[in-house]
């Protein structure tokens, strides 16, 4: 096979995978609509997913948010006065944490924790024929296994982003207390005076889009495993890699749209 044939074959395979992935996403959307219309045994899976993805990630999100909020405040407090722009501190905090880092870092944490877990768990289930067993008893794997993870991960990222924002801004306040103490009322007044509805909405839209990406990519990669257990960690690695790339691309596109 010459180089042109190889390139052609690779392009055809990637194109076919992309179409398959889009078909998978369309099926997930259709089954999600059905999920809420019918009483499903998948509710238990949904609750477990929210517990794992959302509740169990609260601690790491809080630590990260406080640290990031503090770091931004330290940098801003030292840098901005040099340009005579100290008053921009709150604007930078809101834009960086609420619009950008909140959804982005939360999505990265969830990708690393839940994305790999979902891909490897589903991959393992494919290898041990558990997915076929679900089909054999009459459970649709998309509606029973994918949709609860899709909803659970997306909802968790949105909620965790709000949580991240709160802790990020509180972390900043903790640093303010060390550098130049100020009453919390004044800090919150300045902060809320700068915060707009658009900041919150844009952050949440980003979080929801990232949640869709992480959940769909991870479940898709999990189902891509064919038969060998050695494919399972590969699925996990692909889920993380593809999720990161797609999240960053989506972030750039949404930011461009926002400022267009």
């Amino acid at each position, binding site marked *: 096979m010459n180089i042109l044939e190889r390139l052609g074959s690779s392009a055809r395979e990637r194109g076919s995978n992309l179409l398959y992935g889009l078909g998978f996403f369309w099926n997930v959307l259709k089954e999600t609509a059905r999920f809420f219309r019918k009483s499903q*045994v998948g509710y238990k899976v949904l609750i477990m997913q929210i517990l794992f993805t959302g509740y169990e990630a609260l601690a790491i999100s809080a630590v990260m948010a406080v640290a990031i909020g503090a770091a931004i405040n330290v940098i801003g407090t030292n840098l901005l006065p040099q340009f005579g722009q100290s008053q921009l501190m709150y604007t930078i905090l809101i834009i960086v944490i609420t619009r950008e880092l909140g959804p982005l870092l939360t999505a990265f944490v969830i990708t690393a924790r839940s994305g790999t877990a979902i891909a490897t768990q589903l991959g393992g*289930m494919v290898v*041990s*024929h*558990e997915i*076929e*067993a*679900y*089909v*054999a*008893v*009459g*459970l649709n794997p998309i509606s029973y296994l994918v949709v609860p993870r899709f909803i659970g991960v997306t909802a968790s990222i949105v909620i965790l982003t709000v949580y991240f924002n709160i802790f990020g801004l509180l972390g900043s306040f903790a640093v303010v207390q060390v550098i130049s103490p100020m009453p919390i009322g004044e800090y919150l007044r300045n902060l809320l005076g700068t915060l707009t509805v658009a900041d919150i909405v844009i952050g949440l839209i980003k979080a929801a889009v990232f949640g869709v990406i992480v959940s769909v990519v991870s479940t898709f990669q999990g189902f891509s495993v*064919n*038969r060998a257990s050695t494919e399972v960690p590969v699925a996990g690695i692909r889920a993380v890699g593809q999720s990161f790339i797609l999240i960053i691309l989506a972030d750039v596109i949404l930011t461009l749209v926002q400022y267009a």
Partner: protein
Amino acid sequence: MPSDERPAAAAVPAVPAIELKAVSAYSAGYQVLSELSVAFPERRTSVVMGGTGSGKSALLKAAAGLLLPGSGSVEFRGVDMARLSRKEEAEFRAKSGFVFQDAALWSDTTILGNVSMPLSLHKPWMGKSDAAEAVRLIMKRLGYDGGMAMRPADLSSGEQKMASIARAVVHDPDIVFMDDPAVGLDEDATEQLFSLIEELESRGKTLIIVTNASEFAYRFADMLGIIRDGRLVAFGPYEETLARAEREPELRLERLKARGIRAARRRRESL
């Protein structure tokens, strides 16, 4: 379970329970079935034998709608399974059960959860306690006396297989697909399985068994098939396939011929 006489041949419906028409199928890029056609009759036990890698499991999964054909069609009682509506497919699943070769129990669920799943899906009117009792009875019937709250990983492979068999029949399906059902079972459990199959036969169930163990063929086969390299090289009434084997030694049914003719005669006499 009520025990009726096995229906006479005249009572067998003309439309097969499951029919594969020129089915070719692929798994992980490899062709596992090649232009395979076969009709499994209703209320009869069909046994398809073949060696390792011959395509037995692929045939069974294609017949049960678990492996989508690349070409050809699979019909359930005359209806193309690819065209079944969501409701019709749910009905098919309610009427069928599948025993996997390697148990395929859900590892994150208890034995009770595994075996009772078909009941909660297809007989939701049964209360939890009734479902649990039905599970306990069928597991006891198969010789399992362990805890129902245990996870599959806590059980031996034989016990897992028992749970897999129980899951396939607990909801009283019309058609039971069995993929090497005795693999992993000890002698006592295998006898319990044979007894269960006899009971299912006596109640007019359609059984489709793929195996490399000749014991299933000479004990139960009304229809006997041979699969090799994804092709069905023989399929027909038990005696006819054995007679064919006399003329076509490449079918390699020596062991079955040695022990099976006597069993078949005994079986015929009992009908």
